[in-house]
């Protein structure tokens, strides 16, 4: 049995603001049946653009229901800008704590809130499951992408695969993606460490071939991939022979008609700037 706090149990047994707002200004549902939990949130604004009414419906465990309930209490009366600033940690704090393995319930809360706000701003349809998260899916059991994993890791200083699982469930079912998650984390934190120590743009001295390969990989992972991922694409380093970098574009970039332009004006430019002026970039 989980050691839920009294606050969690109280919200679970007496959830506030259950239901759906009539004529909502923003609404969204995140999660789905196969994942084992889902949260639908809807809100309306008053004349001052503050959240006047907010309601939820949750399919999930006790902590999912309690997280949703407490979140609705926290956002009521706030502007969307204020509401957006609420983090999953704020939800956990308000509940007096959640078991590690239930942190993902609080993340689902902020995810749903952000999706509903995006829906209000016309950025997203109400069912976010139709517009997949940016990036490539790493955990197929729970539909979690590399972008989401990096985002959670950075925001919450997560260093291990288990921590990632606690936050978004990725890697917690079949476990096949655990190695991939580990690589993402290793890549992310290695980069952070190096960049905090020294600015890589100042490192453009004469490099050995091996150093050059490392550097190219580093710049692709650190500078280029995150930028492409923001547009739903991605990139993979394939090879370096002499000064020709071979890459594979993935996701949206792969089918994008202007991918050649991307290669020249963005990928090549960045690599020239940060690694070596001699570099040329080609698609696989």
């Amino acid at each position, binding site marked *: 049995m989980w050691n839920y706090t009294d606050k969690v149990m109280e919200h679970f047994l007496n959830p506030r603001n259950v239901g759906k707002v009539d004529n909502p200004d923003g609404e969204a549902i995140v999660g789905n049946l196969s994942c*084992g939990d889902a949260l639908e949130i809807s809100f309306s604004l008053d004349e001052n653009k503050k959240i006047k009414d907010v309601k939820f419906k949750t399919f999930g465990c*006790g902590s999912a229901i309690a997280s949703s309930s407490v979140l609705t209490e926290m956002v009521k009366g706030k502007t969307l800008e204020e509401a957006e600033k609420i983090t999953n940690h704020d939800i956990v704090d308000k509940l007096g704590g959640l078991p590690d393995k239930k942190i993902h319930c609080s993340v689902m809360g902020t995810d749903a809130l952000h999706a509903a706000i995006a829906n209000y701003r016309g950025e997203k349809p109400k069912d976010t499951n139709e517009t997949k998260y940016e990036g490539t899916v790493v955990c197929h059991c729970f539909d979690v992408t590399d972008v989401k994993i990096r985002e959670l890791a950075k925001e919450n200083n997560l260093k291990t695969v288990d921590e990632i699982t606690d936050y978004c469930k990725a890697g917690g079912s079949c476990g096949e993606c655990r190695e991939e998650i580990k690589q993402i984390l290793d890549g992310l934190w290695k980069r952070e460490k190096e960049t905090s120590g020294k600015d890589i743009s100042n490192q453009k001295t004469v490099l050995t071939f091996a150093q050059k390969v490392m550097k190219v990989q580093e710049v692709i992972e650190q500078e280029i991939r995150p930028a492409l991922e923001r547009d739903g694409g991605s990139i993979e380093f394939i090879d370096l022979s002499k000064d020709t970098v071979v890459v594979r574009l993935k996701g949206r970039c792969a089918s994008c008609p202007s991918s050649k332009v991307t290669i020249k004006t963005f990928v090549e430019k960045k690599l020239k700037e940060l690694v070596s002026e001699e570099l040329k970039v080609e698609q696989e």
Partner: protein
Amino acid sequence: MDNGKLIYVDNNATTKVDPKVFEAMKPFLTEYYGNPSSIYSFGGIVSKYIDKARKQVADFLGALPEEVVFTSCGTESDSTAIYSALSICSNKNKIVTSKVEHPAVLNLCNYLSERGYNIVEIPVDKNGCIDVQRIDEAIDNNTALVSVMWANNEIGNIYPVNEIAKAAHAKGAMFHTDGVQAAGKIPIDLSKTEIDMLSMSGHKIHAPKGVGALYIRKGLRFNPFLIGGHQENGRRAGTENNAGIVALGRACELAEQNMDYELTEVKKMRDYLESEITEKIPKIKINGDCSNRVPNTTNVSFEGIEGESILLILDKMANIAASSGSACTTGSLKPSHVLTAIGLKDIMLHSTLRISLSRFNTMEEIDKVVETLVYAVKKLRDISPFWKG
């Protein structure tokens, strides 16, 4: 919150120690602490009680006393049986088992699979039934062991173990069954079967935790799992758990005496529970093979809600202890392998409750369970985005 007296309906997880069992074991925790292997009478007296317990277990199983080896739990019995078969048939490297085994068998098989053994897990149909023919087809002359549980812990299905044992023997393989959930719930008479090895556990039949038994058919070649002293006739080293063994013996005797009650009265309570909730709660599904189940178990899915939250309401509102196949209750995030194996749809998979009764339950308790369940399911469906009631 005054939520009343405990209503314990999770007897497939563990059971209450029968007061009569406790009475029987108590002296061995207090005055009779001798080592049964010792030569003096203070040890010898204990050894007599261990012999008596062995006879009680043997009678309960329809076995000979020398066919019973005491162990520490069901898992140890399972491991012992599987490792023994593999070491005796060292020229073979295949195990045929089912997809719905207890983790004690399944996870050991996964472990062995990583070390080069060929493990074949036979799937089940949507009612959790196993097709003996499929097992038969999977057994070949490279098969060391076939291991299929007698009764399933989650859905309660009873499997045709004797038929499977015959199929195994026809091709020269040994047959082991995890009988942990069958013992005490349905009659067992091993003398009428071809089963080679059977595991059982004390704490599922109103004895305490920490004691189990392994039946090893007379004449079967066997290698011990725990190596050390000569205890259990060289088949299981380690100083005997005197109190536990005496308790297991007494528990078996009581299980035998209560078998008719189990098959009639306990079944009556289970069937009443199922008919009440089926009538009072829409969109539910009873899982498993309703025509061939142990009498105490029901496994039911409630469309559109999640299992852990049902358990929490049962617990907090009425002090009811039940169990769920939902992922959230364990923290593993993975729904039960049994419910996955029977192909439950997503809308049902995460919303499953297992209620398992014992002879200590009462009709009043069942009424309370029904009443609380009706309340819990309605409340949670009102909150659920997937309930279009």
